[in-house]
């Protein structure tokens, strides 16, 4: 009998070890898969931005977009990941209540040298650091791509690259440390809840872009002497619309990466949770992402009847619900997104009338709608626990408002100041002669369409 019990105990231990290994490999594969899915966002931004560009600047826009992706990633490796773990409690760099933040903690896991290098490179005893870092690095690259479309056709390449590095490895990361980390002071003190990063990724990137646009100025020919705006149509609307659809496909990876897989030593619990430790499921995401996509498209269709704005409406729909994808009822998500789709075009027109030439409407889609989504959650989900644990802060309109103001300021101030410095250094805007000639003939060693594109007939109405 004793021998049988011993064998059973051994067998049980083996099964537990096997189940644990399977769970670890599932967690590793889960985050790994989010990375190529999120690369679709960049495929989409590339197509979207190039389509929205006039033919003389197409490849230049493409180069700029590729560099946003390529420079945000190493910058996030060298600095950004450390910022996320060092800053949650504010500029004191002290440890928070969960003891997963502060200077000492960041130095121990997020630097590429010394003891922490074991977490910043291949390590067969660490299945998770690389894939979670990879998912966060893709968020960083996404912020740079959001800014990229706004500034096309007149920004210098290296100047833009420096802005992408600042945004991708500092601005949004600071917002994430404060509002997307269980030790973040915005979460702990104000109950800020932004599950899918509507504020801390989308709004921060958009308001960073607005800060840059103020210093950069509009494209030549965008505004008339009386202040009225001209439409500078991109060379390929189909390219733009398909690009937007690819961004939406990539969003599934982005939002999937916002979930914390359960059952590991670093997990909040045995089940899926948000980054704040509150419970969620992929089912919640499936319901609400699809319903918000539909709501956004329909809302934009009602107001514009324009495929560009309808696809932008799809993005706006998801962004408007991103903060609360874990808590909304699907019909709520549909209505929140419907309103987002309807206010999209009027909000973009309002901004344009203030002399801001946002070539792809990114400030509105990601900024105005991101903040609208943050505030909507503050009304609809008021009282919901913002993070896991007893006696924690709850979601409130005031808390979401404070979080929104902080996110807007982080984006706007860092974008404005850094672009102002570049302007003083003569690295922000291309010279007038180059802009008029087109950036491709000035600095790109190949042609986008060496055989040209046949022109389609004008619309009859």
């Amino acid at each position, binding site marked *: 009998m004793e021998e049988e019990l011993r064998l059973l105990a051994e067998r049980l231990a083996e099964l537990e070890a096997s189940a644990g290994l399977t769970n670890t490999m599932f967690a590793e594969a889960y985050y790994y898969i989010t990375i190529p899915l999120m690369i679709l966002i960049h495929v989409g931004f590339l197509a979207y931005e190039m389509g929205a560009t006039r033919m003389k600047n197409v490849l230049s826009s493409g180069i700029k977009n590729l560099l946003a992706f390529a420079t945000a990633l190493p910058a996030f490796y060298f600095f950004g990941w450390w910022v996320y773990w060092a800053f949650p409690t504010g500029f004191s760099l002290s440890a928070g209540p969960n003891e997963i933040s502060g200077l000492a903690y960041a130095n121990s896991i997020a630097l590429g040298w010394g003891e922490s290098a074991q977490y910043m490179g291949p390590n067969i005893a660490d299945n998770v650091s690389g894939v979670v870092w990879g998912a966060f690095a893709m968020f960083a690259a996404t912020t740079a791509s959001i800014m990229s479309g706004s500034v096309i056709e007149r920004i210098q390449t290296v100047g833009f690259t420096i802005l992408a590095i600042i945004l991708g490895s500092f601005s949004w990361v600071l917002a994430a440390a404060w509002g997307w980390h269980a030790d973040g002071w915005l979460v702990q003190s104000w109950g800020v809840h932004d599950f899918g990063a509507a504020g801390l990724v989308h709004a921060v990137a958009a308001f960073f872009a607005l800060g840059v646009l103020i210093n950069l100025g509009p494209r030549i020919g965008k505004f008339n002497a009386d202040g009225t705006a001209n439409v500078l149509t991109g060379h390929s609307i189909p390219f733009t619309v398909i690009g937007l659809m690819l961004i939406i496909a990539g969003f599934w990876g982005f939002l999937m990466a916002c979930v914390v897989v359960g059952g590991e030593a670093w997990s909040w619990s045995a089940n899926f949770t948000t980054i704040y430790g509150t419970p969620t499921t992929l089912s919640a995401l499936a319901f609400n992402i699809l319903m918000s996509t539909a709501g956004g498209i329909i809302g934009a269709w009602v107001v514009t009847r324009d495929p560009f704005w309808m696809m932008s409406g799809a993005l706006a729909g998801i962004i408007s619900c991103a903060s609360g994808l874990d808590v909304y009822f699907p019909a709520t998500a549909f209505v929140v997104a419907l309103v987002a789709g309807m206010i999209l075009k009027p909000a973009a027109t309002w901004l344009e009338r203030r002399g801001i030439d946002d070539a792809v409407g990114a400030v509105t889609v990601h900024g105005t709608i991101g903040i609208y989504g943050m505030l909507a959650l503050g009304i609809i989900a008021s009282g919901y626990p913002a993070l896991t644990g007893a006696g924690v802060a709850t979601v409130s309109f005031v808390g979401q408002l404070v979080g929104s103001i902080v996110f807007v300021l982080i984006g706007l101030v860092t974008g404005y100041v850094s672009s102002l410095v570049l302007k003083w250094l003569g*690295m922000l805007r291309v010279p007038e002669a180059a802009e008029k000639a087109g950036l491709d003939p000035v600095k790109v060693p190949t042609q986008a369409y060496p055989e040209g594109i046949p022109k389609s007939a004008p619309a009859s109405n």
Partner: protein
Amino acid sequence: MGWNYYTADWSVVADILYPGGAHAPAFWTFVGIVGFVAILWAGNRTEQAKYKMKS
């Protein structure tokens, strides 16, 4: 006896360059950051030269 390739002590070099070397992460991180900045600096010089040619 002078320096001999075959009998020289390469452990210091391995310590810096080889992936398992104790100082390799710090060395490559340093090279990466310096290289990154140098490429941006050189890229900006080239870009400004192209604008100058155009104007």
